[in-house]
């Protein structure tokens, strides 16, 4: 109703005025109607929207095996089968794993062992075929896409292998983009992004676009972005795979510092034994099966 009124008002208010004034009024009417439609749709969706689970808290109540440190992630008999036409390719089979809060876990294995697949199931980017995944004590296996998007936004940080920054945004804008989805003022977002970029050692590169940054710098911007909404868990999928050894060390040290200083649970995938040295715990995968754990 309201958008229609705005549109009609914009189109008809100008009658009797100079054509230029009428054109401006019509444009204002069209834009106002468009904005009103967006706001109306947003409000309706908000009211109708499914009731999403509350954001998981660090001190989860259930599912802990370890009394001292509650489980950040719990995986039970997880399986994933990719279907390519009539062919089924098993990628994970009966994987069970518990990651405690504040842990730093490296998932190792050869190429094709299923380590990235496991990370995607835990990062809610993909859905497992069978089994159960709990994040902070909450079963997320059957969560709707909207609920998963919200959980990814609020509680999880994901660092991709290939930097994955938006080329049209500066380093700072890339970092605070996910924060915008949670609301708050633009000033706070910019300040928070600057703090995080300083934390990852890029305080002097805030206004640079991705193409003006090295691979290691881009990966650290991606880490800062993963941190912007203060997630409990950060997933990193082979974060050093495309980096030179110096950049790789810087990225791994950054992740370790976040784990030690901020208490963020870090789960990363690597096939590089040097990266594994930064982990508190090592999980071995082979052909989709968990073959061992090492602390």
């Amino acid at each position: 109703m309201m958008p229609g009124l705005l549109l009609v008002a914009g189109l008809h208010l100008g009658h009797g005025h100079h054509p230029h004034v009428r054109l401006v009024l019509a444009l204002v009417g069209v834009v106002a109607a468009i904005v009103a439609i967006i706001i109306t749709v947003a409000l309706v969706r908000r009211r109708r929207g499914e009731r999403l689970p509350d954001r998981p808290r660090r001190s989860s109540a259930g599912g802990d095996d370890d009394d001292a440190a509650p489980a950040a992630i719990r995986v039970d008999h997880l399986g994933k089968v990719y279907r390519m036409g009539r062919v089924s390719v098993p990628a994970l089979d009966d994987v069970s794993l518990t990651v405690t809060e504040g842990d730093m876990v490296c998932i190792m294995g050869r190429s094709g062992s299923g380590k990235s697949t496991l990370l995607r199931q835990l990062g809610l980017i993909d859905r497992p075929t069978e089994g159960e995944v709990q994040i902070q004590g909450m079963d997320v296996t059957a969560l709707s896409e909207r609920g998963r998007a919200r959980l990814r936004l609020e509680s999880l940080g994901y660092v991709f292998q290939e930097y994955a920054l938006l080329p049209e945004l500066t380093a700072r804008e890339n970092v605070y983009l996910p924060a915008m989805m949670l609301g708050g003022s633009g000033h706070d977002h910019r300040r928070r992004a600057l703090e995080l970029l300083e934390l990852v050692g890029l305080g002097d590169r805030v206004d640079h676009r991705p193409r003006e940054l090295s691979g290691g710098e881009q990966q650290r911007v991606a880490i800062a972005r993963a941190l912007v909404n203060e997630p409990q868990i950060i997933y990193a999928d082979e974060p050093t795979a495309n980096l030179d050894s110096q950049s790789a060390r810087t990225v791994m040290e950054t992740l370790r510092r976040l784990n030690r200083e901020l208490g963020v649970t870090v789960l990363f995938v690597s096939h590089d034994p040097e990266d594994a040295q930064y982990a508190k715990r090592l999980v071995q995968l082979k052909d989709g099966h968990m073959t061992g754990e090492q602390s």
Partner: protein
Amino acid sequence: MRSARVSVFLAVRSVVRGNYGITALTTLMMLLIYVSLLFLPSLIQGAVNRVNGLLVDTVTSDVVITAAGSASSIDDLDTYLSQIRKTQGVQGATAVYHVGTQISYGSESGSYSVDAIDPSTYSQVFSTPGNIYSGHYLSESSTEQIFVGIGVAGAGQTSIRGYRASLQTVQSNDQVQVGLVNGHTDAFSVVGIYDNQFPLSDNNAYISMSEANQLIPASQDQATAIYVKTDPGADVNTVVHRLQGVRGGMKFETSADLGSVVQDQTASFSLISDILKVISLLMAAITIFIITYIDLVNKRRQIGIQRAIGIRGGSIIASYVLKAWSYALIGVGAGYLLFAYPITAAVQHHPFQFPNGPVTLATTWNEMSGDIVILVIVATIAALIPSVRSVQIRILDAIWGS
């Protein structure tokens, strides 16, 4: 609201920092489409205005008064004209008495309307006396002189419309025979030929009222019709209402009542205009669709990443719709400026030559605002379809392109 903010943020950054070439070309396309949406209807409106103007200036004036009922003429003319001229909102009034129906020249002969006019008051109401093709206009003292339209005289101009139905070779100072309503035939010297570039008025001929009074004594203080020109800006219906109070038993018709002859022509023009408009809108839709689709294909991985980091699909869709709006609105704005100034000014200086004379562009506000709204709706739909599809792809497929 937060989603809308993210959409605006992504759309603005994408337009400002994206490929300027694509932005410029898309905007240019929208500009051209908007101008093409406006151009033909404006030209048609210009032609309609021209015809309506000629109708008022050379045939009907603003108000035509005739005797109502069975009476064929208006009597006590001088008194009535004097009262009409004193009426508020009336700029001028002139009377016409129909005196003849037939004109011959040599072996050529035709049926034409020959009217007696008061040359001085007629020129205050109609522009015909100023549109001289050859010779000159009638004077008060003109005797045995006739002022004919180009459609009557022909004047040897084989290119004019209806030349074959004219007397074909009549020139100024030639003698023509006029068959009068009283059955007599008299010889008249062609004092001048006028060319209104309007067949409805170019097929007439005029003699002076003083001459008519001598030839047809019954025309004394009588008129077949009175033509009234209203003050600029005056409401014709209000003036008619006032004139109705001056004398009863009269029939009043406005130029709008008498202009139905033009409407049939404009209906055909409007159909052509609508067909071209649909084609232009399809072009706009296809342009926006292709630009958005290619953009989405190129940014498929980025969209997957945006979704993976928690940006909602609705925000991503809205950002592409906003981009389409920005192309459409910038194009419309630039198109409006281009149309309103250089194009309209150029056509004003070098009008299109239509059969009814020079035609300029005339835009109506309804046309312009309607085109803007339609263009924005078309851009929205064209951007919405590919962007909705792009966010329905699984995140993994979007990121890894499988």
